[in-house]
């Protein structure tokens, strides 16, 4: 938990300074104030300690729930911590396609936003994943099928095949799927956002 102690002439000033240094709003902190008398008992100072009193996981969940409520969308948000200690938000709404977006663009934006939000309140970097209506899980399955099918083709014809541009996460799924194949190699080429994967025959 993030914590900081600062001494100042007024308690309010100390609280502001703590919030500014820790870069967390006072609303998310708990403060302990200790009054310190100076020599002769004239100059009073305040020693204030601020503790971050907020659960990053809860903030993420509440923010998502508020978002869907604002849009008048019925939504279920559940949280799970996986084996790699990643926080996973699983969302199911009555308007999943809109929230997933074309090629998962909106989902990607929601994940990026939530990841940054959660990391405001964590010590060190926390991996955060978001899925809507099982989109990512399905997409993974599809990509693995595509990878296997294309790899078989490449192994048979000995002709390299370029796949459509994909984001890093999707390319990784294919690289991983084909990493143990003996007769093909996978490479990423081009620049974001048009970076794509090539499956080549292994020259042996």
């Amino acid at each position: 938990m993030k914590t900081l102690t600062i001494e100042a002439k007024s308690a309010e000033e100390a609280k502001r300074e703590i919030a500014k240094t820790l870069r967390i709003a006072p609303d998310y902190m708990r403060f302990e104030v200790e009054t310190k008398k100076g020599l002769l008992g004239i100059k009073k100072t305040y020693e204030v300690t601020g503790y971050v009193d907020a659960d990053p996981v809860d903030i993420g969940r509440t923010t998502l729930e508020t978002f869907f409520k604002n849009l008048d969308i019925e939504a279920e948000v559940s949280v799970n911590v996986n084996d790699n200690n990643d926080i996973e938000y699983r969302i199911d709404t009555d308007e999943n396609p809109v929230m997933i977006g074309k090629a998962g663009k909106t989902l990607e934006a929601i994940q990026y936003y939530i990841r940054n939000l959660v990391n405001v309140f964590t010590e060190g970097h926390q991996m955060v994943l978001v899925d809507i209506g099982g989109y990512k899980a399905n997409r993974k399955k599809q990509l693995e099928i595509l990878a296997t099918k294309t790899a078989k083709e490449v192994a048979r014809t000995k002709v390299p095949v370029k796949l459509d541009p994909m984001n890093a996460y999707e390319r990784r799924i294919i690289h991983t799927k084909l990493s143990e194949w003996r007769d093909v190699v996978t490479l990423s080429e081009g620049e974001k956002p048009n970076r794509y994967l090539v499956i080549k025959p292994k020259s042996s």
Partner: protein
Amino acid sequence: MAVNYEQMIHDLVKPLVVNPDDLVVKKLSDDGNIIAMQIFVHPDDLGRVIGKNGRIANAVRTIAYASASREHKRITINIESF
């Protein structure tokens, strides 16, 4: 169904900032199709709301854009500090 986009954007940005009292989200114009939004934040919070290479700002834009598309509207968001 009338969505309050000011409220929605406000609720998305508020937990990110250190100075929530200085956060203002205003609708500049709404011609029925295109809604122009303006976000004002404390100068100390500008970096966090915009993010590296503007990525957080763009994520918020994408989210707002999708949200408005449900009502066949388009949202543009401008972010500034005062």
